[in-house]
């Protein structure tokens, strides 16, 4: 073996060993992803979200409200802004400008005995006096909970508290109280490795959700459907809203075999969808944008709704919404009017 050959073999082996070593160290340390310096760590308000939450979601309201898609949807839907105007009149909150983003979470959603509304944390600019007055007017009471003024409406099973300046928590009374406890030192969701691993992957989206699959479906799937689905542990989705909508749905299955089964199921549906979409070019365009990918136990589905498709859907909706006029048969001359 010549020196040249030995050198080549040494360099090639070195690259392999170096790469494998780096990856192995990264995987062993628990991942550089756990360092907040690399990659996002979700919004700061996750510190109020309890560690046992099964569903965590985020939406950048400013981005969504300011997007072209939202403007188009509002134009298509006549009277869509009436509710927002009414809400603004009562609370002083302009949904388009006063709320920056919201974080929502739920615990025990899968348990039918729990019917409590989820916890919603909204960051923005609020008229605290006006909102408190509104709740009092509707029969709400003020109670002190660990130094926070909790506004509770038993009638609506809702509670509200201003956790910090510009940060309000709304939800079931128990959930709101728990968020106060969590911030005061309880275990928050940032300590939940499974959830945060998924959050870090998707927190660049304008809106995202991470959920345990059983919590998301709430055990409400028909038994026939549930038995056919591969074992799914986690579900996550993110979306980017601008002139169109781009999204990615990702599920994590129990094992690699379940992921492959799910990929086959999705492929089948995609094939059938494409066959069915021959008559509808706008749907065909959407289905062509759907991309299936996956890695190990993860199955991802990415899609894009281009601006043209949103226009087409809007036109379709407008067409359907137009009142149908039934043609009146011409009356024969001289016939008596009924």
């Amino acid at each position, binding site marked *: *073996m*010549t020196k*040249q*050959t030995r050198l*080549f*073999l040494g360099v*090639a*082996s070195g*690259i*392999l060993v170096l*790469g*494998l070593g*780096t*990856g*192995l160290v*990264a*995987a062993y*340390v*628990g*991942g*550089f*992803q756990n360092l907040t310096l*690399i*990659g996002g760590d979700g919004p700061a308000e996750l510190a109020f979200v309890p560690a046992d939450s099964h569903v965590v979601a985020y939406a950048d309201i400013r981005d969504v409200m300011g997007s072209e898609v939202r403007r188009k949807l509002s134009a298509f839907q006549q009277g869509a802004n009436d509710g927002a105007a009414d809400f603004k009149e009562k609370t002083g909150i302009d949904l388009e400008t006063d709320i920056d983003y919201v974080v929502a979470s739920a615990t025990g959603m899968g348990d039918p005995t729990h019917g409590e509304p989820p916890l919603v944390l909204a960051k923005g600019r609020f008229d605290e006096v006006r909102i408190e007055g509104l709740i009092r007017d509707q029969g709400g009471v003020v109670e002190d909970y660990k130094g926070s003024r909790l506004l509770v409406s038993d009638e609506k099973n809702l509670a509200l508290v201003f956790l910090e300046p510009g940060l309000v928590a709304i939800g079931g009374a128990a959930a709101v109280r728990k968020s106060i406890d969590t911030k005061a030192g309880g275990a928050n969701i940032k300590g939940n490795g499974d959830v945060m*691993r998924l959050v*870090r*992957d998707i927190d660049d989206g304008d809106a995202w959700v991470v959920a345990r699959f059983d919590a998301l479906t709430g055990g409400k799937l028909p038994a026939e459907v549930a038995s056919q689905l591969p074992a799914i542990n986690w579900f996550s989705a993110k979306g980017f809203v601008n002139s*169109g909508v*781009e999204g*990615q749905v990702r599920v994590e299955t129990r094992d*690699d075999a379940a*992921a*492959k089964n799910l*990929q*086959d199921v999705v*492929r*089948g549906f*995609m*094939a*059938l969808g*494409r*066959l069915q979409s021959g008559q509808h070019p706008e749907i065909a*365009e959407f289905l*062509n*944008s*759907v*991309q*299936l*990918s*996956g*890695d*190990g136990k993860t*199955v*991802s589905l*990415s*899609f*894009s709704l*281009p601006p043209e498709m949103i226009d087409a859907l809007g036109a379709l909706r407008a067409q359907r919404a137009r009142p149908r006029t039934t043609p009146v048969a011409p009356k024969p001359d001289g016939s008596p009017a009924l």
Partner: protein
Amino acid sequence: MTAKPPVRSTSFFTGAWRVFGMSIGEMLWSRRTIFMALIVGSPVLVALVARIVQSAGIAPLRVNGVQVDAVSMFGAMIWILFLSFIVPVLGVFYGTSLIADEVDDKTITYLFTRPVRRGAVVVGKYMAYLLCTTLVVLPSVMIVYFLMVPFGQIPASFISLVIDLGVLGLGLAAYGALFAFVGAALRRPLIIGLVFVFGWELVTLLLPGYLKHFTIAYYLQPLVPHAMPTGDTVSLLQGALFREPPSVAMSLGCLALAIVASLVLAVRVVEQREYILEQ
């Protein structure tokens, strides 16, 4: 001091080892290496461009308007470039040439007159092929991975990379062994190999029935940890209706069987066949 008696014949494995040592250098610094460097270097170049584009804040790959994330891009490269093209092509070009080149160059006589068994020549050359291609392809995959996948996503995708490396190594071993046999047994092995890889395997994998069992790709594909990239409606439908992937254990078993059987057959052919060199 007494002089050692001249060695007249060596054991099979010693002979194979000697042929391996001689062949590895020949194989690495042959004209084929330029071809191998080109096809293995192209994914590295693609990954480098993608990395530069990505660092400029532009999505390097969009499919029908959808931005493809780094890990999915890497997975697609493993499927499309490495598994479907580079590994079979290297297997065909190098595997078929192990014996056929010696016959064409009329140098096989020199190998067969050495004090080693003929079969050891095949095995030694096959081992040289395996080391040579593995040490070119796998580092290339490693470089592509580190260029494409962001540092923060390495822990989550590292196991998949290790599996990828194993699958590609297994693919090189299986295709190489099969075409070593084809090269030893048949005339015009290169054409037969290309027809097998780009004709037989592609067609039978899309057809219902048992024919796909007689391909290497059928057993390699279920081992890949990444989802198969989605194609057009027809391939999606065929994949959904006719795809019956074997289990991992069955895939590994069948690939191992294919490697061993092909090598044994190649050894038997070389030991029994009378090579007549054209003058």
